[in-house]
């Protein structure tokens, strides 16, 4: 067998391998409940929160969650409200916090008053001095 023939067989084998891996990958089915993150339902009401576009908002997650666990909650909050500038508590240095959203189980922020709530989500505004 010539090297050219071997090369051709190797090239066809590479293509066949990719095809063999690809068919099950393409036909894989994912149940509808796995297409949305588990925490999407928790944050879905945020889409209706009366917050003007472009505002900076701090998100307070339930006490005891570490950064790795709570970060996806920020991701989802951004997906629900891509028009806002969201940050996890504690807020970045220099940010004056006027609006806070607390998730179910999160502590109420001191010095803020609740102005909207739905399904456990609460929107807080800094109380007037």
């Amino acid at each position, binding site marked *: 067998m010539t090297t*050219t023939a071997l090369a051709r067989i190797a090239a066809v084998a590479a293509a066949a391998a990719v095809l063999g891996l690809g068919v099950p990958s*393409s036909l894989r089915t994912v149940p509808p409940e796995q297409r949305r993150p588990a925490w999407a339902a928790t944050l879905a009401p945020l889409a209706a929160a009366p917050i003007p576009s472009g505002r900076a908002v701090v998100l307070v997650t339930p006490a005891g969650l570490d950064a790795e666990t709570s970060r996806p909650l920020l991701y989802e909050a*951004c997906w629900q409200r891509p028009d806002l500038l969201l940050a996890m508590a504690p807020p970045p240095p220099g940010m004056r916090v006027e609006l806070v959203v607390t998730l179910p189980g999160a502590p109420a922020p001191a010095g803020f008053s609740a102005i909207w709530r739905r399904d456990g989500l609460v929107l807080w505004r800094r109380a007037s001095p």
Partner: protein
Amino acid sequence: MSCWAGVVVALTLGWGLWRTSARFFAPGEFLIAVPLWGMVGTLTWLTLLDLLGIPWSPGALVLPAVAAALATLASPRPACPVRPTPWALVAAGAAVAQAALVATRPAFGWDFRYIWGLRGLVFTHAASHASQWLAWLPNRWFHPDYPPAWPDLLAAGVTLGGTVERVAASWSAVFVLALGAACWRLTAPTPPPVRALAVVAATWAPLLWSPLYSGYAEPLLAFLTAAALVSLPGAARGDRGEVVSLALATAALALTKNEGIALAVGVSLAVAMRGNRRAALTVGGAVCVVIAAWRAYLAVEAVPVEPRELAPDIALRQLGELLQWIIRAAPAIDIALLTVWLVVAALLLRARAPALVALAFWGVAVAAAYLTTQQGIAWHLATSLDRVLIAPLPAAIACTLGVTWSGDARRGPDS
């Protein structure tokens, strides 16, 4: 149907530009050139609107497509050499089946929801590139420095009335067909069954079309890589139409993920090494302009950029971790893809194929990116290596089939 509005408008723009360009040079094959021109035209138009301070709106987005369609009335009709043969029909059938599958699945993958699709939504709401959102420090987790081509296309589709999940699905279906057409061309002039195999392998490649990765940028990257490699030999010979097509494809690559930048630079190097200075300057210039423009935008708007660890001793330590991870922890799919890449690289090297330089540069750049990551190399590999490996693989396999089955191994796609 509104989820297709963005695609239809972009392809109409591409069709108009493709027809108009035929007045000046041979504009390339319809199925490759129209999506390429359409995407580049859309990205250019969105950037222009942003620079002029004009918000992205349905009217503003439709305008260039209408103008381009009207311009076709005064343009010659380019040759459209469609020669249906049984093997071409097999290839087309496989591509259409995958496109239909992809089109019916609204995107939901993690990186789609929290990187690409999210940025598409952000750009739509801001009716611009949303510099304030990109520069917002807490948003550094969303990789705001990633190039904007895919979110721009998504934003255009959402602005025209689609949901971002369905717009992503619609575009992905277009990428299936365009990638298939590019791989058909890449394998010329080999026997038709070999060409069909290249198309079927590309349009049914693993991960690219998996629902778990739906809405990711890799299908766009795969198509643009194939489109660039199609034009590479002709551009190196100085064919004006191929030089323009290659400049468009590489410019779009440089705006599609950081791996796209590596591929674009690699293709530019490949043209330069073929000795055609004018083509190399045109292609390299296009790549440099878009990279410089995006980097300048990031710097001016103070957008956080992913940090890199450039100390050689750390890179050396991470090289050890990389090898250990591949030996001990890599999933089977990564091992399989690495094996296929080894075969493909050996065959391209044996044939001294023009694509080898481009793909070799990409490989070195990807390795460098992993070795300089600050995110933990094991985590970085586990969350990205499979997708990084698969994006240029369909085009590389088509090239490999082309050079091993054609009579002259050094000949590129000509027909």
